[in-house]
C-alpha cells in the first residue's frame, strides 16, 4: 500500500515536470546547439548557407577591431561593476543595520532602482551624464572647469597596444558602470542585510570581550561570515554583466570608436544589420563560454555542498 502510493506520487511528479523539461530541452538546449552549428557555417548572407566553414567566423572575430574593443570593455565593465555593487551594497547594508530610525524608508529607497528595467535606467542616465545637458550643468554652476566627458570620452586610460586595439580602461565605460551600480546596488544591499542580520550578536559580543577592535571584528568575523553571500552576488552580477545588452543599447550605443561596445550589441547589429548570421552565432557562443566559465564551477561546488 505504502509502496503503491509512493509510485503514483512519483509518476505524478514526473508528469508535472515533463512539460517544462520538454520545453526547456527544445527552446534552450536545441536552440543553443543550433546556434553552435550555425557559428561553424558560411551563413553570412540572407540566404541560409550551412556549409561548414570551420573556425573562420571565430578567427574573423578575434582579429576584429570591434570585437576586441567589446571584450576589453566587457572585462573592465565587469570588474568595476561587481566591485561597485559589492562595495556600495555592503556600506548601505551596514548603515541600515546600525539601528537607524525609519529603517524601512531607507531600505525601500535603496531597493527601488531595482524595480526599474535597464532600459529605463539607461535612458535616465544617458541624460544625466550627457556632457552638455546633465550633471555637468550643475558642475558648471558650481564653478568647476574641467568637467568630465562621461560616456562620450574616447580616452583609454593606462593603455598599451594589444592586438589591433589600445588595451586599457575605457573611461567612457565608467559612466555606464555608475548607472549599472546605481540600479543593482539594491540587490547586494538586500543580500548583505540578510547576511548581517543572520550573524548572531553573541559572536560579535564574544569578539569584543576578547578585546577585538571594531575593525578586527569586521575583518575576522563579519567578512568571513558574509563570504557565501559575496560569492553569490559575484556570480549573479558577473553573469549579468557579461551578457549586458539593454543598458548599453539604451544608454550609449556602441560609442565613438567603440569605447562602450559590448559583444551583445555587436551580435545584434552584425546579425540583423549586416546579415552576418554565422558571425552573430559565433559571438553568442563566445558569450556563452564566458558565462560558463563563471557558472560551471559555481554549479559544481554548489552540488558538492548539497551532497
Amino acid at each position: 500500500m505504502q509502496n503503491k502510493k509512493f509510485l503514483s506520487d512519483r509518476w505524478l511528479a514526473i508528469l508535472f515536470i515533463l512539460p517544462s523539461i520538454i520545453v526547456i530541452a527544445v527552446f534552450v538546449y536545441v536552440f543553443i546547439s543550433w546556434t553552435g552549428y550555425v557559428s561553424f557555417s558560411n551563413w553570412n548572407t540572407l540566404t541560409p548557407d550551412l556549409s561548414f566553414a570551420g573556425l573562420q567566423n571565430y578567427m574573423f572575430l578575434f582579429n576584429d577591431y570591434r570585437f576586441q574593443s567589446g571584450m576589453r570593455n566587457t572585462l573592465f565593465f565587469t570588474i568595476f561593476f561587481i566591485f561597485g555593487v559589492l562595495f556600495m551594497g555592503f556600506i548601505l547594508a551596514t548603515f541600515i543595520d546600525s539601528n537607524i530610525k525609519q529603517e524601512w524608508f531607507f531600505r525601500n529607497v535603496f531597493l527601488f532602482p531595482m524595480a526599474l528595467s535597464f532600459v529605463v535606467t539607461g535612458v535616465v542616465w544617458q541624460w544625466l551624464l550627457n556632457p552638455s545637458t546633465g550633471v555637468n550643468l550643475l558642475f558648471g554652476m558650481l564653478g568647476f572647469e574641467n568637467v568630465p566627458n562621461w560616456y562620450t570620452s574616447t580616452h583609454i586610460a593606462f593603455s598599451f597596444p594589444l592586438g589591433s586595439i589600445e588595451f586599457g580602461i575605457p573611461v567612457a565605460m565608467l559612466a555606464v558602470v555608475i548607472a549599472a551600480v546605481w540600479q543593482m546596488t539594491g540587490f547586494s544591499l538586500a543580500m548583505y542585510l540578510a547576511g548581517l542580520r543572520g550573524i548572531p550578536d553573541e559572536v560579535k559580543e564574544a569578539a569584543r570581550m576578547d578585546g577585538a577592535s571594531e575593525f578586527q571584528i569586521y575583518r575576522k568575523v563579519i567578512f568571513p561570515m558574509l563570504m557565501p553571500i559575496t560569492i553569490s552576488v559575484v556570480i549573479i552580477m558577473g553573469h549579468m554583466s557579461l551578457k549586458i545588452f539593454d543598458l548599453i543599447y539604451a544608454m550609449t550605443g556602441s560609442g565613438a570608436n567603440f569605447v562602450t561596445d559590448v559583444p551583445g550589441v555587436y551580435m545584434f547589429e552584425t546579425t540583423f544589420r549586416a546579415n552576418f548570421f554565422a558571425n552573430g552565432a559565433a559571438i553568442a557562443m563566445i558569450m556563452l563560454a564566458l558565462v560558463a566559465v563563471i557558472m560551471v564551477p559555481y554549479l559544481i561546488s554548489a552540488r558538492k555542498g548539497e551532497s
Partner: protein
Amino acid sequence: MHVKKLGLLVLLGLILLVAAACGNNNGTDNTNAEEPANNAGAENEAGADEAETEAEENNTADEAENNTNEEASGDREELEIFSWWTGAGEEAGLLALIDAFEEEHPDVEVVNAAVAGGAGTNAQAVLASRMQGNDPPGTFQIHGGAALNTGWVAADRMEPVTDIYEEEEWMDKFPEDLIDLVTTDGEIYSVPMNIHRSNVTFYNTAIFEEHGLEAPSTFDEFYEVADQLQEAGVVPLALGDRESWTSLHLFETVMLGSLGADGYNDLWTGDLAFDSPEFEEALDHFDRMLEYINEDHAARNWQDAAQMVAEGDAAMNIMGDWAAGYFATDLGLEPNTDFGWAPTPNTEGLFMVVTDNFGLPQGVDNPETVKDFLRFIGTTEAQDTFNPLKGSIPARVDADPDAYNEYGQSTIEDFQEADSLTPSLAHNSAAPAGFVSQADQAVNIFVSSRNKEQLIQSLQQAQDDNIE
C-alpha cells in the same frame, strides 16, 4: 486525493493550452506563428504571468473565430503590411494610406504590422526570422537598391512585379534611374512609395544672415564659411553620431561631391578602388570637415544635431530631408524663414536617393491582393496622400506639387531636373548590407582616430570581401 485530482486537472489544462496554440498555428492564420513559443515560455514562469497568458489565449481564440467567420462568408481578406513607420509623421502617412486603400477595396482588411526602433534594424530582425520561417508578410518596406537586390532578391525570395508596371504603364511615370535601382536581370521587383534626398545641407538662416554668409556650394566655399563661423564662436557643422550611420551619411555626401556621380557609383561595382588617389582626395575633404563639428557629437542622435541648428547652437547640418520634416512638423519651423537648405558641397544637380519600396514576397497566401496594394501605392493619389504627411516627395514624376510645402516643392523640382540619381550608401541602397556595416564601423573608428590609412585599408578589405 483531492489535491491529486486538482493537479491532474491543471496538467490537462496546460496540455490543452499548448495544443490549442499549436492547432491555431496550423490553421489559416499564419501571423500568430510566435504564439506557441510565447505560451510555452509562459508556463515556466510564475503565477503573475498567468493572467496575461490567459488574456493572450482569449485573443488568439477570438482572432481564430473571426477568421473562420470571415472566410465562411467570403467577407474580408487580410493583407499584412510590414514596415518600421512608427514615428509621428510617417505613421500618420501609413494610416492615411491604409484608409484610402480599404475604401477602394472594402473586401480587404489591412493589418498594420509595423515594428518600431533601431532605424529599422528591429524590423529587419523580425522580417528575417519570418522570411526564413516561410511566413512572409503580405508586403514589406525595403529600401530600393542593394538592400532589395543583394538581399531578398538575391536570396530568391521575391516575385517580380514587372507585369504591374506594364499593365499600369508606369515605365515613364517613374524616373529611369529609379526603376534601374529596383531591377535585377531585367525584372522589376518593387514599387517605390517615396523619395528622400540625402545630400542636403540645412542651415540656420538667422546665423547666416547675421554673419553675411551664403549657403556654400563647393568644398572651398564650405571651408570659408565654416572658418568664419568658427572664428565668430559658432559651431559650423552639427553632427550627432551616437548611432554611427550619421557619420557614414556625412561621408557619402562628401564622396559624391568629390568623386562625382560616376566615380561614386564605381565604388560599388569595384571599378574604383578605395586605395585610389581619387578616394584619398574625398577622404581628405571628410577629414577636414570633421574639424568643424560639435564636441559632444557622440552623445547626440540626428534629431539632437538638427535641433542644434534649429536653436542656433550650430550653423549647418548635413542630413537627409527627413530633417526638413523634423524642422517643419516637430519643431514648427518655417521653411526658408527659419531654416534654409542647399545641396551638400559640389553636389548641385546630383540627387542622392533613399527610397522606400514595397514588393511581393514569394509564398504569400493572397498574391493578387498584394498586387492590388502595389498597384494602389504606385498611383499619384496614394503617393500624394502618404508623402506630405511623411515629409518625403513622391517617386512619380507626375505627382501634384501643390500638396507639398515649400521644401517639398523645391525638392520635387530638383528631383525632376536631376542629372543623375545616386543610391545612398548609409541607407543600404548602394552596397550589400555586409559592406555597409563594415564601412559603418570603419568610419565610426575614423571619426575618433582620424587614421586615414586604417580607414582606407578597412574599406578596401570590405570591398574585396563583399563586392564582386
